């Protein structure tokens, strides 16, 4: 997904920008009180409605730790808005709910596309009879989903007007699309009516995508929420206000939205429906299957999401059974016994635990254009690698992450194609060696006991940071690490949104960041280090000819041992250059109330309530 603050334990992605703007702790708590009181009102309302029906309404209540931004898929990049969009809109492809590692499955397409022309032509065939949710924009007529809707939606990602953060996934890939975007930049109006060679609806239900280079990752793009089908009439009717009018073909519709406080989704009555039918891939799946197999989806009538920014407030709400899900985060010791199992008091309540390692990597980058830490001279390599060797990551995991993370050995995390457990990292924790290395390259200690540059110039690292308690802990750890090699370090506080901007402009010297998989392929992580991605996601502005050559070669290959070897070469290259201080992949522990049936954490999908059921009999 997109970069997010490395220090947050549970929060994710760019939504944090909004969090920082929206004014912090007290407001979050206040909002929660409002949300909580609203919640109780709504549940009584729901109950009185039920009297007329036979079955009680199935309501799922959950919390987001960060506010959403809006519901126009290509325009948002935060996890929270994306989650809602995932349930309202539909992609050509999606992922199998149970298969691990994640496996693609058709969504509105009949099957996975035919890939011809050596990985350059993708042909998707759509199901017949999928309809958009009725909306005034359709003039009262049922509106069927067609291939032309995908042509429109894909083109829209490159429309300069909407400034999609996902443009990089299509740029330079689809024949004729870039020319259209260039023209739009000049005229100020994107020409949606011109047919291009790369994106064609060859008939009502067939979409043909032609790529300029062979690319075996395009299916992942087709499964990514920002590339969902939107109806042109709706987008044109609501103009700038599309963020508040999500009209899709998916199983849920937006019922109520109080910005930054509460989102309510309801089952789409016009949804075509689907049958729960997944095959086991791991231990424990059998139970899920026995509970869910053959049920008609979706089963949850209503999803109520409150925005609760303070971790502690969300935790207490879960404790009072006002939320059906909760992460464990920093409350680990309240939940687990010494063996790492659920404590008896939780088991007695029937609470279920779901654990997974997130497909993500945290890292601290060095700015390669910085006069102090940047550059490829031998002494600069030595400086960066000494810094990497001095950082005590095991202590980060033990003390700050409270044991809920595993060290990253490659830029590609565990569970993502291209990760190789056999790879031995080069720059392991070794402050003694780091000191010797700095000595060998002439970083002499001055009178104050701190080192200078070999030419005698002052050596001061500037580490960008925020102001939360957690970030202070990271700063303490970094300060300790740099003291151990006698290097001076200062911490520059800033807002997450400003820091993102500054790092995209290559203005930060060092900063910690994180990346979560958009799709479970190593390419999604290696692109963070690819030279031409400077200004987008390559925040360290790392530009190595050797690395770029490996990366470009890997793009031309399907998933294969040869491509995996290239991933290893890239990893070694970035380690030799000392591009990143590799961090961790975090462990996510989810607690689930006993009335929620069928939950399994998915590495990519986040709106998994589509596949869940609720047993009202078990509710208190």
């Amino acid at each position, binding site marked *: 997904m997109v970069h997010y603050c490395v220090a947050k334990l549970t929060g994710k992605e760019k939504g944090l920008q909004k969090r920082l703007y929206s004014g912090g702790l007290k407001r979050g708590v206040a909002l929660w009180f409002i949300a909580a009181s609203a919640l109780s009102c709504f549940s009584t309302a729901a109950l009185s409605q039920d009297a007329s029906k036979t079955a009680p309404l199935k309501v799922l209540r959950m919390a987001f730790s960060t506010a959403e931004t809006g519901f126009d898929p290509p325009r948002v990049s935060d996890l929270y808005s994306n989650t809602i969009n995932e349930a309202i809109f539909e992609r050509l492809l999606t992922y199998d709910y149970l298969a691990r590692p994640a496996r693609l499955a058709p969504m509105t397409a009949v099957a996975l596309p035919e890939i011809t022309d050596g990985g350059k032509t993708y042909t998707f065939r759509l199901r017949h009879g999928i309809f958009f949710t009725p909306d005034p924009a359709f003039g009262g007529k049922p509106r069927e989903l067609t291939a032309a809707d995908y042509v429109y939606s894909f083109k829209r990602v490159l429309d300069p007007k909407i400034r999609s953060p996902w443009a990089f996934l299509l740029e330079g890939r689809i024949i004729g699309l870039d020319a259209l975007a260039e023209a739009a930049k000049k005229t100020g109006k994107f020409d949606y009516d011109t047919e291009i060679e790369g994106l064609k609806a060859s008939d009502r239900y067939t979409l043909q995508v032609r790529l300029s280079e062979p690319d075996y990752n395009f299916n992942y793009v087709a499964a990514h929420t920002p590339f969902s089908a939107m109806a042109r009439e709706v987008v044109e009717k609501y103009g700038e206000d599309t963020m508040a009018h999500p009209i899709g073909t998916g199983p849920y519709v937006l019922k109520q939205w109080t910005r930054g406080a509460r989102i309510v989704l309801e089952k789409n009555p016009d949804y075509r429906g689907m049958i729960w039918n997944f095959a086991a891939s791991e231990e424990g799946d059998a139970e899920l299957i026995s509970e869910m197999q053959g049920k008609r989806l979706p089963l949850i009538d209503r999803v109520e999401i409150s925005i609760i920014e303070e971790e502690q407030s969300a935790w207490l709400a879960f404790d009072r059974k006002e939320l059906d899900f909760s992460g464990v985060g920093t409350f680990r010791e309240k939940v687990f016994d010494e063996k790492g199992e659920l404590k008896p008091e939780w088991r007695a309540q029937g609470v279920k635990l779901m654990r997974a390692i997130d497909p993500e990597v945290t890292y601290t980058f060095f700015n390669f254009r910085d006069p102090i830490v940047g550059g490829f001279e031998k002494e600069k390599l030595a400086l960066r690698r000494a810094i990497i060797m001095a950082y005590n990551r095991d202590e980060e995991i033990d003390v700050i992450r409270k044991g809920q993370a595993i060290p990253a050995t490659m830029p590609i995390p565990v569970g993502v194609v291209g990760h190789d457990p056999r790879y031995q990292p080069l720059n392991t924790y*070794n402050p003694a060696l780091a000191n010797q290395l700095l000595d060998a390259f002439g970083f002499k200690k001055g009178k104050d006991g701190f080192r200078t540059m070999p030419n005698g110039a002052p050596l001061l690292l500037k580490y960008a940071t925020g102001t939360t308690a957690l970030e202070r802990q990271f700063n303490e750890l970094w300060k300790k690490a740099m003291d151990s090699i006698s290097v001076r370090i200062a911490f520059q506080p800033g807002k997450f949104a400003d820091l993102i901007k500054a790092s995209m402009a290559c203005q930060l010297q060092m900063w910690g960041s994180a990346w979560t998989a958009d799709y479970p392929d190593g390419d999604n992580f290696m692109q963070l280090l690819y030279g031409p991605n400077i200004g987008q996601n390559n925040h360290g502005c790392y530009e190595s000819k050797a690395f770029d050559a490996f990366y470009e070669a890997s793009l031309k290959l399907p998933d294969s041992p040869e491509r995996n070897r290239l991933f290893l070469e890239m990893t070694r290259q970035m380690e030799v250059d000392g591009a990143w201080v590799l961090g961790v992949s975090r462990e996510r522990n989810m607690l689930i109330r006993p009335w929620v049936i069928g939950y399994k954490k998915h590495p990519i999908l986040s709106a998994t309530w589509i596949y869940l059921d609720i047993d009202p009999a078990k509710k208190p």
Partner: protein
Amino acid sequence: MTEAISSLSSTAISETHGDGKRRGFWSLACQRFRDDGVGMASLIIVAAFFVVVLLSMSGMAASGWNKEVAIHDAPPDLWGLLKPAAPTAMKSLAQRVEEETKNAAQAQSKEALPPLTVTDPLAETLQALNASEETSTAKKEKRASLPFGGDRWGRDVLSKTIKGTQTSVIVGLSAALLATFLGTLLGALAGYYGGRTDDALNWFYSVFSAIPYLLLILAVAAVLQQRGVTTVILILGLTGWAGVFRLIRAEYIKHRGRDYVQAAHAFGVPDRRILFFHILPNVSHVVLVNISILAVGFIKAEVILSFLGFGVKVDEVSWGSMLNDAQSELILGRWWELVAAGGAMALLVTAFSLLTDAMRDALDPKIQRTS
């Protein structure tokens, strides 16, 4: 001439005591203060804190607060009075996955990694270094418990509290001195001269006090961009002078019409002498009381600033940063850091406030006394 004037000024507020002897203002004030039991007790407590600060500044106490002497989150034992439970080690999924991946790597190691072509320009240097010296990673013995417990890195909470006392007291006092100095200077000018000077300074003061205090502090903190004790002192001092200004201005307006000021004028004493040698001693009790009121306020403000992350640097410690550290630990049952920092702060602030009250009572000649 000068002596005559100054004796004139001090007699202005001296009074006749019961025994008929005329005693000076300050000696009377001391007498009243000594009679106040609560005041004396709080003075002793505040003095004790100052001793701690001096010891800590001279390096005789808490110089090693940054050393990790104990295990992570070492529990408190209060010199053997408490029996801390043995810490438990939890095995997380993360550790299990790590073990599994290691096992998997070993199982797979038969089919070795494909050879990599990347060359390491530092390989030779590193190899030479590795060969030349054994890189030792010997672990030091760490204590299982500490008198006041340890923080998450295993640092002694007692030492941190002492060092934090130093930061807090220095910040509180210095900022109070700075703010009082500014407030007194500007208040004196405005009150004495009146007219345009007064208008201009009043306008300036109104603007300052119209901005919500915390926002003003955060704004200055954001502009200064540099954290540390000095910055905090500057922030608090530069934003906290408004109250003193108002009081001192009123006092000067009151005094400028008094006979002794008029007399000094008639003698041709320059304005700055009248301002700071004639009137100032007569309003000094207001100044003194304000310094201590401000000091209490600033000690608390520093705690809030550090708690919000705008306070002291990473390698400094204050009560605020300790409370900030402790907030996420409390729900896990680690209360000692919060109790130590919170307790120390509560004690000093209470004692200081009581001391201020006692001082005001002692210094105010007009207060109604029943005896």
